[in-house]
């Protein structure tokens, strides 16, 4: 119920805010491309055509071609499927595990809480991509391994956030009433606490999606993710990097697309945060 109203409010504020409307359109197009790239892209991402490599943008190839002579715009469209996976997989899996553990730690507390929070401290002691890199050292490179390594790195922050949201819920009136009525701990957590902490978690998930994209695409860029020939944007960028002087579009196009998608999600996340916490919007200095 609450989620629907958040979404409605988002659409409403997009009428007044052009950058928000633009971001929503970008996300919509991305999802559309990601679901049915085979009907939209003119060429397959495996159509290697060496005589036409590194061509500048033209009518035949609106964004030019890459170093294998593949049509860049088709590559970008095929790559949106990878981008969707790279955003949704780490975010959703990490959120499910993290919220579950955080909820139990926050509401039940005790030894479980203590153990979980120490583990969170340890996981958060690895800066940036380091934990993902350490895990990839063990698992070896590859797209699936890169996705898992980023996922594991995300869990700790979800635990921390959902725990801190669930903690004050112990004292809330309706939770006490539910307890008095004999509701079990599981019922209290799923029916009374979870729905009330969902909104900030959705906001966090929205911010987490672009950062997952940047992380997995970054790992691919470092040569630890997907392997060529692929349409994965990070790999496209890495492969075209050497031709920067002769064919800058080949590297810049995938880079700008990643930037655009990340911006769209961060901008929507920002708008969602204003909706969830309306005080923020009307703050004035002095």
């Amino acid at each position, binding site marked *: 119920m609450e989620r629907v109203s958040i979404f409605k409010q988002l659409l409403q504020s997009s009428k007044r805010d052009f*950058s928000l409307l633009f971001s929503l359109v970008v996300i919509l197009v991305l999802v559309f491309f990601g679901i049915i790239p085979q009907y939209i892209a003119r060429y397959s991402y495996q159509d290697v055509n060496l005589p036409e490599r590194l061509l500048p943008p033209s009518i035949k190839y609106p964004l030019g071609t890459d170093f294998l002579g593949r049509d860049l715009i088709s590559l970008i469209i095929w790559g949106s499927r990878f981008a969707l996976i790279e955003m949704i997989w780490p975010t959703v899996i990490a959120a499910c595990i993290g919220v579950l553990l955080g909820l139990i730690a926050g509401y039940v507390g005790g030894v479980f809480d203590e153990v979980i929070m*120490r*583990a969170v*401290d*340890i996981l958060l*002691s*690895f*800066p*940036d*991509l*380091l934990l993902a*890199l*350490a895990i*990839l*050292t*063990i698992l070896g490179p590859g797209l699936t391994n890169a996705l898992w390594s980023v996922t594991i790195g995300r869990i700790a922050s979800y635990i921390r956030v959902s725990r801190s949201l669930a903690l004050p819920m112990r004292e809330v009136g309706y939770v006490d009433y539910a307890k008095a009525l004999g509701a079990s701990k599981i019922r209290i957590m799923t029916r009374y606490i979870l729905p009330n902490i969902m909104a900030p978690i959705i906001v966090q998930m929205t911010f987490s999606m*672009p950062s997952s994209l*940047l992380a997995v*695409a*970054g790992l691919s*860029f*470092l*040569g*630890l993710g997907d392997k060529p020939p692929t349409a994965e944007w*990070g790999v496209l*960028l890495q492969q075209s*990097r050497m031709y*920067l*002087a002769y064919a*800058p579009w080949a*590297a*810049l196009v995938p*880079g*700008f697309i*990643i*930037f655009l998608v*990340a*911006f769209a999600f*961060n*901008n929507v996340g*920002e708008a969602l945060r204003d909706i969830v916490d309306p005080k*923020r919007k*009307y*703050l*004035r*200095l*002095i």
Partner: protein
Amino acid sequence: MWKYILKRLAYFIPTILGVSILTFTIVRLIPGDPVEIILGRHPPTPEIRTYYQHILGLDQPIYIQFIIWLQRMFVGNWGESIISGLSVQYLVFHRFINTLQITLLSIIWIIPIGIILGVISAYKAGTLIDKTFRLFSILGWSAPDFLTGLILILLFSLHLKIFPSMGGGGIEYLILPSLTLSIGSIAYLSRITRGSLLDVAVQDFIRTARAKGLSKTKIMINHVLRNGLLPIVTICGMEFGWLLSGSFIVETIFSYPGIGGLTVQSISSRDFTVVQGCVFLITIIFCTINLLIDIFYVYLDPRIRYERRS
């Protein structure tokens, strides 16, 4: 205050221990025989194998192995690189000094620019200037390092030929990587600054100051900035910690000989002892900086001291 610091220190030790256990397990979890992994591609003779098993303590129970390893790490005997045969601690510390240089230069851009932009944004909250700044900060925050880095190389190295695009050595090698690192951090710091100042602005003592008839500028400098800058100290410290741990992507783009680049290279070349050394040093530094920030914060903000006491 001391009680709080002691408590924070007490949490620091299990964290360091946990991080060490994870770092230790990296080499142990890689499929295959640890001796063969550490000796690299050459298959060892039985005598060499036994010798290394003894040296590495592989004939001991796992917890003893861990203690031996930890002792070696703290004494400064980090083993040898599988690929180059160089001493790991020499390699890692040498690279770390390079990353430190980039960090110091980046901090010079980030802290003043980020805070000034944030203060302007908060001062003009709700106006067009604020909205524009906010949009730019989301843009800066979303820009992937690999894109900014490439654009800077294209502009300043390939077209204008002002700065070199790769390598390390003099100050000219530091400019482009540090600019790339700074863009996202400036955007982030300005957002935090804005939010933190606005949080202060709605508090009662600001209303009191206004009721006394103080001018807007005076309130801003004496009351809002003094209180609002406290959380920003934390963010600046964290930023320092992030930068010190070396950016894997930026150092790779600019082929900069820092610790982040070293980590990536040694993962690609399966040089596991070096990976272990890098992970160990980076996490220890990162944890220590976080500890120092927390202690410094208690020192700066008397409210925490009193809260803990009561």
